[in-house]
């Protein structure tokens, strides 16, 4: 019986030290400790045992260099998964915020100045508004042509190609000179058009009188947004024929970058190749939120790695060669702030020695129907293999560029 109680006491103190003992059982445990010398001795031994394990945890950590050297000497590659823990902690353990703070402040100040300058030289808003209306106008004309084609199909007077455009919108239409020019170019019958319009769009009777300035020549009204009690006038400046930048899907980018190695490089490149720290690229807009693209960059990466040299000696190498990196990327625009478009970007690519991943963000400022400026920051990491071991080099960059939208 006494042995059973002692055994119970042993178990309780072990559970207590591990934090596994239920709080209601603690008074019993301390009572047994107070009354049993053997249990107190066991408790002291356990405390000493745990203290020794706890105080020597630092001895368990294998230095990175030692691990790499061991695997190198056995010719066994260290997989990226094997180094995952270090990668996960790399940023927080090795990243020195104080070091990069001046650069971040400089980047922010430059961004604000650039934006202010661009705002001062930017075009008035009506240009983009007119462009949007122009786009709407093209849709409406297509619709009318389609409706006309349908109407005339019974009499076999309209070419089949006109039926291809189908836009499910009902509009109020009033004949203007520009519409007549369209009709002339298509060699359609004006009388048929006028008759069909009157028949299809009876809302014209409800529209109050509309006044049109001399330099505007088109009226298009979307029925879904139309308030019949108010006059509605939408104009398109006929001099502005370039579609809005939002409707263009393809763009070219030319940019430059300023990079800082992480950790700081201890050597400088032997030479800088042509177009160093420059990039050219092309992007395609999938929708309002996403773009995909490809780019080519001239850049350097500071590499520090180790391995065995030709004589079997353990050697640490440092170099900063020139690379041409080819990447595919995805750009995400989370919000639309008028002419400002903040974005997040990630890309994956490769160069002569390894793979390069980048992630970052920035802002695009649209200054016209074809031009936009960009400024952002990115974090790049290059993974490369030496002597069957994997290493990586990282750097932080501020990039800037100009985009030209073509269609």
């Amino acid at each position: 019986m006494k042995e059973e109680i002692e055994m119970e006491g042993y178990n309780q103190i072990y559970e207590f030290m591990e934090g596994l003992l239920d709080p209601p059982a603690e008074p019993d445990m301390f009572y047994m400790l107070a009354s049993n010398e053997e249990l107190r001795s066991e408790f002291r031994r356990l405390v000493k045992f745990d203290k020794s394990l706890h105080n020597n945890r630092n001895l368990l950590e294998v230095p990175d260099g030692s691990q790499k050297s061991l695997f190198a000497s056995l010719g066994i590659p260290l997989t990226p998964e094997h180094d995952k823990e270090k990668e996960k902690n790399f940023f927080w353990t090795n990243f020195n915020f104080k070091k990069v703070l001046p650069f971040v402040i400089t980047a922010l100040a430059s961004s604000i100045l650039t934006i202010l300058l661009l705002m001062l030289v930017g075009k008035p808003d009506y240009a983009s508004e007119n462009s949007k209306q122009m786009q709407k106008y093209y849709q409406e004309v297509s619709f009318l042509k389609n409706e006309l084609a349908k109407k005339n199909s019974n009499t076999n007077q309209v070419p089949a190609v006109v039926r291809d455009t189908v836009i499910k919108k009902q509009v109020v239409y009033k004949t203007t000179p520009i519409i007549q020019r369209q009709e002339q170019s298509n060699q359609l019958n004006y009388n048929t058009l006028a008759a069909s319009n009157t028949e299809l769009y009876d809302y014209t009777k409800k529209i109050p009188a509309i006044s049109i300035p001399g330099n505007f020549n088109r009226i298009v009204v979307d029925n879904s947004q139309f308030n019949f009690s108010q006059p509605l006038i939408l104009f398109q400046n006929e001099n502005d024929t370039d579609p809005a930048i939002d409707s263009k899907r393809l763009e070219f980018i030319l940019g430059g970058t300023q990079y800082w190695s992480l950790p700081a490089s201890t050597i400088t490149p032997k030479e800088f190749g042509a177009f160093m720290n420059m990039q050219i690229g092309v992007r395609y807009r999938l929708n309002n939120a996403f773009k995909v693209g490809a780019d080519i960059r001239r850049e350097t990466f500071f590499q520090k790695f180790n391995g065995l040299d030709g004589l079997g000696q353990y050697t640490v190498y440092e170099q900063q060669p020139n690379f041409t990196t080819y990447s595919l990327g995805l750009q995400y625009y989370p919000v639309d702030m008028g002419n400002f478009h903040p974005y997040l970007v990630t890309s994956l690519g490769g160069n002569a020695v390894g793979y390069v991943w980048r992630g970052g963000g920035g802002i695009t400022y649209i200054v016209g129907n074809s031009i936009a400026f960009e400024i952002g920051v990115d974090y790049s990491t290059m993974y490369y293999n030496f002597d069957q071991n994997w290493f990586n080099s990282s750097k932080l960059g501020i990039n800037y560029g100009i985009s030209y939208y073509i269609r």
Partner: protein
Amino acid sequence: MNLKEMNDLELVALLKGSKQDKDEAFREIYSRYSKMVHAYCACMTYDRDQVEEIFQETFVRFYKSIQNNSRINNIPGYLHTIARNIGKNHNRDRKLNTEITENTLTEDSRIDYDNRELMELILNTVELLEPMYRDVFILHEFEGLNYGEIASRYGISQGNVKIRYLRSKQKLIKLLNPYIKDLSK
């Protein structure tokens, strides 16, 4: 093929297979026992460079021994034996008079010799435990796995893992009892 679920003997068998099998098996064995072996090496000497030398050489010799068809039933025990022998050789080869640098004095003043010695004893004694207790103790204390992770690795309940862990500690303290008493003096 999930190497994490394999026992030590299966990994040793894999170490004699193809290059890919060897590499993967070695990585797994290394991830299981590297911390413990490193701590053991660090307990043998206070010279950091020497610790790394002994540590690396231990695993190199272990790998080569397997390739030479040595029979191994207890990997941590075998690793300890190799490390102990290499450590002895290193200590024998060291100069009798070592120059005391400022750096050495600073570092040594912070070392808790009693704790370090007990740690070495614990590491030596772990290999004497039965595998079912030894593995749980190593994974929890040295690899930092929690009870749930160990339970899923061995396909047993968390309660079972807790019991095995507590038993392993009881057994270790029982084995070390004379030394702990001596250290307390």
